């Protein structure tokens, strides 16, 4: 049983197993399920993740609600083929994260990871890093298991709610989960996974939740793309040998404290940040006061 990242890593080292094995064994005890059953549930979730990360790449999603982000995934995907400034890998990664956000906004099927608003980060990182590392499907599911274990520690000890901790608690936590998964897929050891978690959280500390018109679209979609990037660069920094001066568990607590210190206007109320700009307010008025958001 692990209740912190430090515990997860120390058990893994003691038993000479990869950290996902520690997550698996704890889940087997808690849920009274077998390894096969747990991997089957992971595979079911991963299949939905893949579909949501691909669905909007070729076709803009129907938007029964306000279409503030309609077509963004396809645009990014087309651009990814040119390589852009940051290269094909980063651009494809972002396109996939945007696809999940677009599918989510259009009332399509997604996997909350850890929340619906942050549903693009883990799929984009698992798929794109998995491709780059030529990982087997089994290895990708092990990485998903590890990421879920990291998320579980954060959910137990801090928060993954935007209303409680801001966007750092949603997209930031997803980035920390995905950073550990990326390190694992690249072949990094447990300490490197832990460092990547701490670095990703440090990079996102303080990020506010400020949805324009209260909708899970802007800036949520862009934050899914940018936090997927945070996950892979944090993994790269850790793999290059950067040790986080602050341990991951202390960063998790710091994230919680920063979240609580944020004024409520910046915690999913749609009353601060981008939502409170003149244009953000005009978008709100346009959609709701004139009743154009219906159907």
């Amino acid at each position: 049983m692990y209740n912190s990242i430090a515990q997860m890593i120390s058990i893994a080292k003691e038993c000479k197993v990869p950290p996902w094995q520690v997550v698996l064994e704890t889940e087997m005890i808690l849920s009274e399920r077998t390894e096969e059953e747990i991997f089957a549930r992971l595979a079911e979730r991963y299949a939905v993740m893949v579909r949501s990360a691909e669905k909007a790449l070729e076709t803009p999603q129907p938007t029964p609600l306000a279409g503030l982000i309609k077509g963004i995934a396809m645009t990014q995907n087309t651009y990814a083929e040119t390589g852009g400034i940051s290269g094909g890998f980063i651009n494809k990664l972002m396109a996939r994260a945007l696809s999940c956000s677009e599918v989510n906004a259009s009332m399509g099927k997604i996997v909350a990871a850890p929340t619906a608003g942050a549903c693009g980060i883990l799929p984009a990182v698992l798929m794109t890093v998995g491709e780059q590392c030529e990982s087997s499907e089994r290895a990708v599911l092990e990485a998903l298991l590890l990421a879920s274990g990291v998320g579980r520690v954060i959910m137990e000890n801090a928060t993954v709610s935007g209303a409680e901790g801001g966007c750092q608690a949603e997209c930031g936590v997803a980035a920390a989960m995905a950073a550990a998964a990326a390190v694992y897929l690249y072949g990094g050891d447990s300490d490197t996974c832990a460092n990547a978690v701490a670095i990703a959280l440090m990079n996102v500390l303080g990020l506010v939740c400020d949805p324009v018109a209260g909708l899970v679209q802007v800036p949520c979609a862009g934050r899914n793309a940018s936090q997927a990037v945070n996950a892979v660069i944090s993994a790269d920094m850790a793999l290059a040998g950067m040790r986080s001066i602050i341990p991951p568990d202390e960063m998790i607590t710091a994230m919680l404290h920063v979240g609580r210190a944020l004024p409520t206007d910046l915690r999913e109320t749609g009353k601060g940040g981008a939502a409170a700009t003149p244009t953000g307010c005009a978008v709100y008025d346009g959609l709701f006061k004139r009743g154009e958001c219906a159907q």
Partner: protein
Amino acid sequence: MLSIFDVTGPIMIGPSSSHTAGAARLARVARALTGAPFTHVSFGLHGSFHDTYLGHGTDKALLAGALGIREDDEALRDAPALAEAAGVTYDYYRATLEGVHENAVEITFHLDSGKTFSVIGSSVGGGQIVIQRVGNFQTEFTALLPTLMIEHLDRRGIFSEITHTLSEAGINIGTMKSTRSAKGGYACCLVEADEAIPPEIVEQVAALNDVYSAKAVNAV
């Protein structure tokens, strides 16, 4: 203790676990409690459910749930068309409910029999719900476990008859709580079980002396 599937999951229709997935689940549980055909359903939206329902598809999610559509079924966004096809009409209004969460709803089914039946519940985050009133009874359950709701007369020995019926059917009772209007009056008993409660067992409980009604909500 959390499961990793509370972190990576649920599989759901977007955009919001509390405003969309939780709303659909609330209405689906309410439908299961109703257990009778209906022609019209009214949704009284409280708090944030009312303020943001259009932007989060809460309206479609609630209607979908009332039609029995699951929160991970993409048919959810076609709920208005499906309701029309099923001959079900619906309406939404602003409600002010007491003692509920910020995201709460009162769902009233207008039954074919001419009667109405209402359920109040809250969506408490991550797609999880709490049912807080069924008909006239205050209650509190999450519907994560198979749940049996029994309205009965408060009299000596009735619980042993209920528990006997369940144990004979191989059903283990996880939790059980009961409230009554007065000594010897009208009472309501809520059982959460580890096994699904089949319709024939619900009927057996309903047929017990001094039991007015029994309703089960299984695996929703």
